[in-house]
């Protein structure tokens, strides 16, 4: 199994979620993160003084999938999250040793 963690622009979330759902991926965990990257933060000016906001608000999507559909899912995320602009984000892929569905105790592929 693969565990895919993607850093995306916040407003892409809805599109990606819809696309994944259509693909049959029914679970996903999302959190708010701050991104530092090529895309710099912005400056806020208060009372004439500059304040450097170095980070950019980003959204992290985490989804565990079976090996066979991993590539398809990565492709989908890439496709939906891509606007061709700096700051579009990254996708990280990990090996997942095990997964357990708490409610039922199912493990492995069945638990996804």
């Amino acid at each position, binding site marked *: 199994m693969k565990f895919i963690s993607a850093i995306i622009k916040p407003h892409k979330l809805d599109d990606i979620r819809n696309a994944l759902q259509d693909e049959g991926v029914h679970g996903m965990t999302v959190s708010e993160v701050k991104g530092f990257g090529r895309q710099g933060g912005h400056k806020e*000016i*208060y009372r*004439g*003084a500059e304040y450097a906001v170095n980070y950019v608000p980003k959204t992290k999507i985490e989804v565990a999938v079976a090996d066979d559909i991993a590539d398809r899912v990565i492709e989908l995320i890439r496709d939906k999250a891509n606007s061709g602009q700096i700051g579009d984000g990254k996708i990280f892929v990990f090996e997942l040793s095990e997964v357990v569905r708490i409610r039922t105790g199912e493990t492995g592929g069945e638990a996804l």
Partner: protein
Amino acid sequence: MTRRGIHFCMGVLALAFLNAFPAAAFAADSALDTGDTAWIITATALVLFMTMPGLALFYGGLVRSQHVLSVLMHCMAIACLASVLWIVGVYSLAFGEGNAWIGDLSKIFLSGVTGSTQSGTIPEGVFFMFQMTFAIITPGLIVGAFVERVKFSAVMWFSGLWLVLVYAPVCHWVWGGGWLADMGVLDFAGGLVVHATAGTSAIVFAKMLGERKGFPTELRPPHSPSMTMIGACMLWVGWFGFNGGSALAANGQAGMAILVTHLSAATASLVWMSIEWIKYGKPSLVGLVTGAIGGLATITPASGFVGPIGGLVYGAVAGVVCFYAVQLVRHKLKIDDSLDVFAVHGVGGILGTLLAAFFAVESLGGVGLAQDVTVGAQFSVQVIGVISTVVWSAVASIIILLAIKKVIGLRVDAEAEQTGLDITSHGESAYEY
């Protein structure tokens, strides 16, 4: 009859507008006026609301989230302390008969004052309360200079001593029948007594305390501009009580004071907003409300003397001058007067006091200067008022701060500064979501 009454009789009522207003009269034997009383009680509530929670929120929104409760705490604790000190003796020092320099102790614990004691057309208890709200907000204003790094005990000691050594005498000079009142200085609602004293002491405090880590390039933006905006609105509306209440009556002077106060604030807001829009392309909420406070502080000393056009001009000048004063203090003087107390309140109050000599004249829509007083003569008096207030405030503050630094210290350690005063000084955190 309070000395303030005498001051008014001599310094203000003697002015040409004596005719313009129905004898709002401070004679001890005039009957109690329920309308005046209703208004001054209301004004008292408004001015108290300016500090609690107005000023506290205005400042609280501008700091980082790990310090916000400490700011609220400073404002509240100072308000409580000032209230108690006010009755214990500061009121008496400010408004007791005394001499040209300071009042006396005849009114400590309000001795001799009951529900039926009058001051002008209102109960003296109400006059006492109204003035108390000024003694509360003035040290509160200084909080903006030392946020995010000060020791709480130092705040308490400073505020208490400052009320006795700075506020009481200056208030006596100007409003309590002291030497500046005798000279006929114009300060309707506190350009000198409130804003110049607080602004000066603030910048002195900031300098002696030292800057926050990261100042001036690595600061974090205000953590809650909406909190700041709420506070600013409370200050703005409360200022109607501040300036309008200083007429000590519900009359045309009170009405006109409120009118020019509002116009100055609105104009200064638009001016500050426009400067930001032109310079940076984006007009900010924090900027707009800072402009408003600048406009309000600036009109304060003149609010009972100028006309509508004066209000507009005051606002326009305040917007520009305070904007650049902020830059000056931060980038040229490099003093971390963190929330710009001097640049906004100090500069505004001084500016407004000086301009009053001009805009009080009838040809500019004002109520007119006292008989036989020329603009030049009045301006000299205003300058003397400003210099003496600023020098006294600075010197006394330095002495108080040196003493506190020696005995208990002014500043928390670097880790507490980073972790936040909320947890380290008060054991609380603001956002437990």
